[in-house]
């Protein structure tokens, strides 16, 4: 992506929030990013369109997966300085508790950074970071 290539030319860290804004599905989900000490935290405001269970109500499992996968991708971009978006190879999502009608957050760490493949662990929480809503473990291919 141009934004990532330009950051590499400038020897500057990529602007992750600008990157997120360029990805249509991430913009549609309402994702925002902030970076502190090299750790990216994504925020997803609650929106009625994200609901998967109207009785609780709870956020759809697919939305939770989308947020976690995006956290994994942007942390991979940050850590590897990749100039194009990594591609998911496989993911495993654990749903720990239901995600309520509230803002959600996610961050990720690279458990192993290879030359071609990274292993990433991501976690999502709502009001209390110590009580994760869901976790993701996945492999991503560096383009």
């Amino acid at each position, binding site marked *: *992506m141009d934004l990532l290539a330009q950051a590499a030319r400038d020897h500057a860290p990529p602007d992750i929030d600008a990157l997120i804004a*360029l*990805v*249509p*599905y*991430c913009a*549609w989900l309402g994702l925002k990013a902030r970076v502190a000490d090299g750790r990216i935290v994504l925020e997803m405001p609650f929106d*009625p*369109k*994200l*609901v*998967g*269970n*109207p*009785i609780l109500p709870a*956020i*759809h*499992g*697919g*939305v939770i*997966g*989308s*947020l976690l*996968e*995006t956290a994994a991708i942007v942390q991979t971009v940050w850590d590897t300085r990749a100039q*194009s*978006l990594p*591609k*998911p*190879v*496989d*993911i*495993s*999502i*654990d*749903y720990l508790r*239901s995600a309520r009608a509230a803002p959600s957050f996610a961050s990720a760490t690279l458990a192993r950074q290879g030359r071609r493949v990274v292993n990433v662990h991501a976690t999502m929480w709502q009001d209390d970071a110590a009580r994760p809503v869901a976790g993701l473990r996945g492999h991503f291919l560096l383009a």
Partner: protein
Amino acid sequence: MSGSAKDIHRRFSTASLGGTAFFEALGARVTEIAPGRSMVRLPYAPHIVGNPDTGVVHGGVITGLLDQACGIAVGTALAAARRDGEPLQGIATLDLRIDYLKAARPGADIVVVGECVKITRQIVFARGRAFQDDADAPIALAAATFMVTELQPAAAKG
């Protein structure tokens, strides 16, 4: 929709049989429904793109379709197995494992088939398969596990 599908809707009260807000907002629809099986379809659209350079759909969209299709398959399987007088059951996804076999081709619909493979008292197992034009060339495969939850106590039955 067939009579049997209407019956499933009547007997299974959670909203996971198709019309979740997220699923509808994505623009997806349920195209087939039978006890233990579902098929859903999502037309290509700008808002599902995950890579603006290539137009490839975001993996999370496929995750959402797989979760939904497996959830419908499990819901209909539970509804078909439920006897009159038993409490209504809901489901919650415990885990979802996905292999992304190849990138979804931009511009083409994504079809996902969900199948319930095993019901136990507490846990239900499902498989999901996503493809585009060729059902024999999947773009993603999923294994999902759901927990059965009770929606209402048996005593509250009307």
